[in-house]
């Protein structure tokens, strides 16, 4: 079975500072993807960043980067120079091929507050 664990229900960061959101996962698959999704108050799920399991290099997207530790099954998200618009619920998700198509398993989410 695949599982995704986010142990930080809530986090807070000062504007312009850096924050790291934690995620661990478990899977027996050798071929999978990991994602961070952002869900602002509008409720629209937005893909922030993805990591292919076969790539050792950590993914980066502007102010967002990940620390992917495959052996430890850890996948944390670092947000640099935090902005007010980063305030949202963040979900870590594991994408794997489960029979008919790819499926996503989500963590329970981390609610990020950004203080001005």
């Amino acid at each position, binding site marked *: 079975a695949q599982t995704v664990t986010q142990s930080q229900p809530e986090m807070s960061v000062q504007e312009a500072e850096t924050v790291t959101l934690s995620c661990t996962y478990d899977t027996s698959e050798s071929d*999978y993807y990991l994602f961070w999704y952002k869900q602002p108050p509008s*409720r629209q*799920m937005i*893909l922030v960043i*993805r990591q292919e399991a076969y790539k050792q290099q950590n993914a980066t997207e502007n102010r967002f980067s990940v620390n992917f530790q495959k052996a430890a099954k850890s996948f944390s998200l670092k947000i640099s120079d935090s902005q007010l618009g980063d305030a949202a619920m963040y979900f870590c998700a594991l994408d*794997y091929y489960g029979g*008919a198509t*790819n*499926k996503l398993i*989500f963590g329970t989410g981390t609610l990020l507050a950004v203080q001005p």
Partner: protein
Amino acid sequence: DVKVTQSSRYLVKRTGEKVFLECVQDMDHENMFWYRQDPGLGLRLIYFSYDVKMKEKGDIPEGYSVSREKKERFSLILESASTNQTSMYLCASSLLPAPITGLVNPYNEQFFGPGTRLTVL
């Protein structure tokens, strides 16, 4: 841009009512999904469909059914709504068909709708 729309942003129903949640995607995607989102539980997969009239149960299918008569539309049905089905429901779609066995799993992003917040009284 891919657009996934859901028929209602907010819905209030009574216990025992039959409820239909509609989802439409406009990009000819093969796969469509229904999730429910609850505080402290994240998103959980209810059902998904990988082709017209084809469906598979997700992790929490009890109390739900689905229908996919046309490629662009995927409906979630609550046959007899109960208060424990009060939740946020999210629809998603993804492009690629099921990969051929033995090939590397291709990247197949899911695109989400804006969600329907359902309250069952």
